[in-house]
């Protein structure tokens, strides 16, 4: 009787909880929401829990609550205080962590990659951990390949071919085929409103005010029905006044509407299909990507355009071709050449086209803008490839640069290597200058291959020595010294040819996260890292061969590496 009763009323199975840690700023939380939305579509059976800082998550709860089942707001500001002292504050922190651990977490995923989030992740009790955390012995651990890749590449250079949302989704592990990035246009063909966000968190990422004044003046002069709404925080007021109080805008004041300090939810509600968004890479552009408001993002300074482009289709990103762009937060810069390389004439032309047609025509740009202004910029349109990754399609240049070609190669390699995603990309067109750069890189690829093969050889020697009845410790030490030398040479190689930086950087992070708890397993794991880099270099070589840039320099180069080791 009891058995029959149980069968007819099966016990409800508790949903597995996936906790995502994102304790950085609003823009990062919004990008995390895109990835979490994909997780929900792919795995509705999981309960999703967001761990975020109160000050950043509170203003965007209206988006977050649509994506996550539960949200835990961490309030570090009130937790750490002088009244409670150090011991009391530690207790307060543990009490906050306890709120997270009250949930039975199957997997915790740290998408913040800061030291603080790494410590926090160490305190979270979960069956599986993805993304960085500290072991009990205080070693940083990053187990999964996509997190290792993210850690090794983001903010190191401009050769990362993935948008941050796609990287987050890859770490979370979702299939993106036909599940996101609607191809439908949200914005009307003819728009009579512009939401302008001419501010950024750093001066490097922000155009000077006078340029924005020119853009506003020309757009309002040429478009009688146009209204420009300027969004920003209360701290942007000084900059706002500099833009607006210019005498040339005197007759247009009734067409300019300040929206400084407006709650984010109100801003989101106000911006409808009659709006075009123009601004720097910021939280606002990520916010509007949830509606797919037509946007033109101007990337400057430290911004990696493809990495942080708003995650929506058929939008445009304008960036300079300046050699030092993108730079790093600690790079000193007095002149801001990348700001000068983007002309306000180009921005006005692009904005005018988008206001009236939702697209930017290369022909119109070439007709209306001088070659001098066009040659110094990249205009990219966001598209999606067959595996659902957000990609850039260059609007004005048919010929690709060496960096762009390598980015494509890396996109194919990493997608297959880490997720077995098969990508087919068209054979790129390139000019003589790029041919010379690619030819120079062939030699570096050969060196990378040789070095990784030497790495395999010496790790194998160590394994063979350990397997002997009486291992010779002096020999093991000698082989290990050789491996250190190989790693140093890999660093030198990456410095000499930046195009190979991503492969070397990934090897470095993977080698610092070897699997195993004894010397045999760790050495085996090191062997596989060298094997992986050897494969990467072989594929890169094959790609270069298919482009017709490989000459018969391999033999000579191989010899030179061998004499160095």
């Amino acid at each position, binding site marked *: 009787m009891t058995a029959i009763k149980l069968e007819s009323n099966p016990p409800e199975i508790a949903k597995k909880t996936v906790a995502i840690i994102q304790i950085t700023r609003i823009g990062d939380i919004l990008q995390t929401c895109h990835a979490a939305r994909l997780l929900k579509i792919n795995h509705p059976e999981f309960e999703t829990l967001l761990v975020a800082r109160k000050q950043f998550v509170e203003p965007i709860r209206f988006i977050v609550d649509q994506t996550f089942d539960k949200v835990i707001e961490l309030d570090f500001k009130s937790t750490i205080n002088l009244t409670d002292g150090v011991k009391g504050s530690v207790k307060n922190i543990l009490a906050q962590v306890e709120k997270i651990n009250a949930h039975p977490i199957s997997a915790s995923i740290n998408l913040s990659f800061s030291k603080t989030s790494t410590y926090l992740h160490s*305190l979270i009790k979960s069956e599986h951990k993805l993304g960085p955390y500290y072991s009990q012995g205080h070693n940083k651990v990053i187990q999964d390949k996509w997190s290792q890749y993210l850690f090794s590449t983001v903010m190191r250079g401009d050769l990362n071919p993935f948008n941050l949302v796609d990287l987050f989704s890859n770490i979370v592990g979702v299939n993106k085929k036909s599940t996101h990035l609607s191809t439908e246009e949200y914005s009307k063909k003819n728009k009579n409103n512009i939401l302008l966000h001419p501010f950024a968190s750093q001066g490097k990422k922000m155009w000077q005010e006078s340029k924005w004044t020119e853009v506003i003046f020309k757009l309002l002069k040429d478009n009688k029905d146009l209204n420009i709404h300027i969004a920003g925080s209360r701290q942007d007021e000084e900059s706002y006044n500099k833009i607006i109080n210019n005498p040339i805008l005197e007759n247009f004041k009734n067409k300019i509407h300040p929206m400084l300090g407006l709650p984010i939810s109100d801003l989101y509600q106000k911006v409808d299909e009659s709006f075009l968004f123009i601004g720097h890479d910021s939280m606002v552009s990520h916010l509007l990507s949830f509606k797919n408001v037509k946007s033109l993002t101007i990337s400057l300074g430290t911004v990696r355009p493809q990495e942080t482009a708003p995650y929506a289709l058929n939008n445009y990103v304008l960036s300079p071709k300046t050699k030092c762009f993108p730079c790093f937060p600690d790079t000193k810069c007095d002149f801001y050449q990348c700001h000068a390389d983007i002309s306000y004439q180009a921005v006005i032309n692009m904005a005018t086209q988008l206001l009236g047609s939702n697209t930017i025509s290369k022909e119109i740009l070439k007709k209306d803008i001088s070659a001098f202004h066009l040659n110094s910029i990249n205009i990219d349109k966001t598209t999606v490839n067959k595996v659902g990754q957000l990609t850039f399609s260059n609007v004005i240049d048919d010929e690709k640069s060496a960096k762009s070609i390598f980015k494509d190669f890396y996109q194919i390699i990493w997608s297959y290597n880490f997720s077995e995603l098969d990508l087919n990309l068209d054979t790129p067109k390139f000019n003589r200058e790029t041919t010379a750069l690619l030819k120079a890189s062939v030699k570096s690829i050969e060196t990378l291959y040789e070095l990784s093969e030497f790495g395999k050889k010496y790790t194998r020697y160590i394994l063979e020595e350990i397997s002997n009845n009486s291992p010779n410790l002096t020999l093991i030490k000698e082989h290990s010294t050789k491996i250190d030398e190989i790693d140093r040479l890999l660093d030198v190689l990456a410095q000499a040819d930046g195009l190979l930086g991503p492969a070397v950087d990934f090897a470095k992070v993977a080698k610092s996260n070897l699997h195993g708890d004894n010397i045999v397993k760790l050495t085996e794991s090191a062997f596989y890292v060298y094997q992986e880099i050897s494969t990467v270099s072989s594929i890169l070589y094959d790609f270069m061969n298919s482009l017709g840039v490989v000459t018969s320099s391999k033999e000579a180069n191989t010899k030179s590496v061998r004499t160095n080791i």
Partner: protein
Amino acid sequence: MNSDNTEAFKNDLLKDLNTVQKSLNEKGLLTEEDFALLLMSSILEEEG
């Protein structure tokens, strides 16, 4: 904010961080409280 209290907090924090470092050197393992202290130090560092 009282600067004397801030100074005392800073000194206590440094003292406790030293204790954690010593304990890590001796035992090779960190406790939950140690991680919470390191987390707090990292938050304060981030916020300047």
